């Protein structure tokens, strides 16, 4: 059982290829042939360039919560003589194969703590997510490429935070040191490489130590739940905060903790399926009722709800845990540069104004 191996930079692809024979492997990769273009997690294919140099545009949540998945299939069966009482068959087919996400970031893995509580620890357990979650391991990179939009340390995480990860990846000058953090992960490293030599191990340890000391982001979220409740009715505050908002769904789709979904049926003649697809609380239709009433009719209520969800409602519902992992994707991808840190930061300022 290997606990720790070294992978030279030029051997990464062959190691990944070997790994992909043991387990379904997902890696962060360029989605467009442009080194600064969008990135996301994709199933490994030989030769596919790993995008390790930065945080991915899209988070890894789709590994556990695909943008669209089939919940159920159904079929009406008719008697040959066109009987009125056609019978109905409904099945749910779930498939959760052992999966490894290689090259996750601490913030992304931390985001799963939110998803876990919602999908697996509520009064109802979502079997689709939960079964995938149980079968998925994360090899997480000690994160050295944070930028001005990252704030993981502000929301309880950190660039070297390995909570929820099964393997740790440290990028050194000439390669990667991968270390199994859990027993189940050890066998994955078998026959993949040799243990690192002492100097590399020392370098890795120094990196881990150095990164662990970093504080990424200076947002103070202490008391934000309370501050949000006080701000809730202050329309002026929210108008000021969201006037720029275009009400598009980018922030929610790139967000690793945004999990809201819709369920729709699609059928052709007698057969069909029930789909679950990502939805966004930024969309008008998200809460639109059949009567025409909409409790969150404008971007003001919708944006407020998003902030509330992450910094007030989720903490209130789930033992104080914030619904934000500080990855900064919503800031990076926002077409109008809205900064959620500002919105949350201001919550506590002059609450009485």
């Amino acid at each position, binding site marked *: 059982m290997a606990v720790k191996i070294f992978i030279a930079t030029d051997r990464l692809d062959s190691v990944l290829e070997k790994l992909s024979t043991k387990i379904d492997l997902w890696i962060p990769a360029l989605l467009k042939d442009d080194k600064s273009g969008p990135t996301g997690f994709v199933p490994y294919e030989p030769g596919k360039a790993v995008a390790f140099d930065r945080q991915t545009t899209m988070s890894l949540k789709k590994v556990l919560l695909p943008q669209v998945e089939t919940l159920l299939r159904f079929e009406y069966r008719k008697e040959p003589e066109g009987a009125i009482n056609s019978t109905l068959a409904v099945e749910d087919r779930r498939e959760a194969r052992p999966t490894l996400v290689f090259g996750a970031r601490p913030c992304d893995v931390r985001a799963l703590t939110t998803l876990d509580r919602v999908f697996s620890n*509520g009064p109802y357990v979502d079997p689709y997510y939960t079964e995938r979650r149980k079968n998925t391991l994360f090899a997480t990179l000690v994160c050295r490429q944070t930028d001005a939009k990252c704030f993981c340390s502000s929301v309880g995480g950190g660039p070297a935070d390995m909570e929820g990860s099964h393997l740790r990846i440290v990028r050194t000058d000439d390669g990667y040191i991968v270390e199994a953090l859990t027993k189940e992960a050890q066998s994955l490293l078998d026959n993949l490489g040799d243990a690192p030599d002492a100097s590399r191990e020392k370098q890795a340890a120094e990196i881990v130590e150095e990164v662990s000391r970093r504080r990424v982001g200076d947002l103070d979220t202490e008391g934000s739940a309370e501050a949000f409740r006080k701000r809730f009715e202050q329309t002026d505050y929210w108008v000021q905060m969201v006037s720029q908002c275009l009400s598009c769904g980018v922030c929610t789709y790139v967000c690793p903790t945004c999990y809201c979904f819709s369920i729709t049926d699609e059928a052709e003649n007698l057969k069909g399926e029930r789909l679950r697809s990502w939805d966004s609380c930024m969309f008008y239709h998200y809460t639109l009722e059949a009567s025409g009433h909409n409790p969150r009719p404008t971007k003001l209520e919708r944006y407020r709800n998003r902030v509330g969800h992450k910094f007030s409602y989720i903490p209130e519902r789930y033992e104080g845990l914030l619904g934000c992992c500080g990855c900064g994707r919503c800031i990076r991808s926002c077409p109008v540069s809205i900064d959620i840190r500002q919105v949350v930061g201001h919550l506590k300022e002059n609450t009485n104004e």
Partner: protein
Amino acid sequence: MNNNPYLPELATIQEIITETGNIRTLRITLNDKDRMERFTFRPGQVGQISVFGTGESTFVINSPPTRKDYLQFSVMKAGEVTSRIHQLNAGDQVGLRAPLGNGFGFDEMKGHDILFVGGGIGMAPLRTLLLYMIDNRADYGDITVIYGARSPKDMCYTYEFEEWRAGGVNLILTVDAEFPGWKERVGFVPTVLSEVAPSPNNRIAVVCGPPIMIKFVLFGLTELGFEDQQIITTLEKRMKCGIGICGRCNAGSKYVCLDGPVFSYDQIRAMGGEL
């Protein structure tokens, strides 16, 4: 329920009752006879009815748990799913996920006088509790029902008003405007409420109806001296999963599908706007 809370149980429509021009009542039974026999729920809990190929929609189970021949749902034609439900016939197959939600605290109401205030289709959630109380009549004090609709043609459950009265219910009916042949009251529900002026002493008010009616009834009840915690209503929101996961039916940190749909007025006040 099975281990997949998204998987509906198959059910068959036994009977369809046309209540009004756009409201129909379905009486359905689960295809699994054992399940149907073991099926229990609290008045006020809801079910998700699936019309496969169109989708799911949430309705309160408006038959009481004390009457188990069928589960009854009243459906007003409004959106895609309800329109499709209106095309169904007895014998057709649907899916059902139930019971969901919290239901009324009928035990805590024991020994109290009860006031029901319902408007239009809003009578549906009240009916389940009302029939439950009729079936356990001795546990409750005075039961007064104020039920209003736009016109007699828009009133549901007219065929069982006599049964309600026979069950010891003070049933007060009203319509918005004069109508040929109408012998009961005329006027909006909040107005009738202030005319009837039921005493708030030891009484719990259960309100359901269109938002505008609820607004004025709440105002009226407060005028009459009802405290917030004496007033109970059920909320409606767009729902998808019905099990507190999909995220949309929240009001503050509460999910209407999971923590509701029944809330007392003081709870609603604490939840903030966005209703």
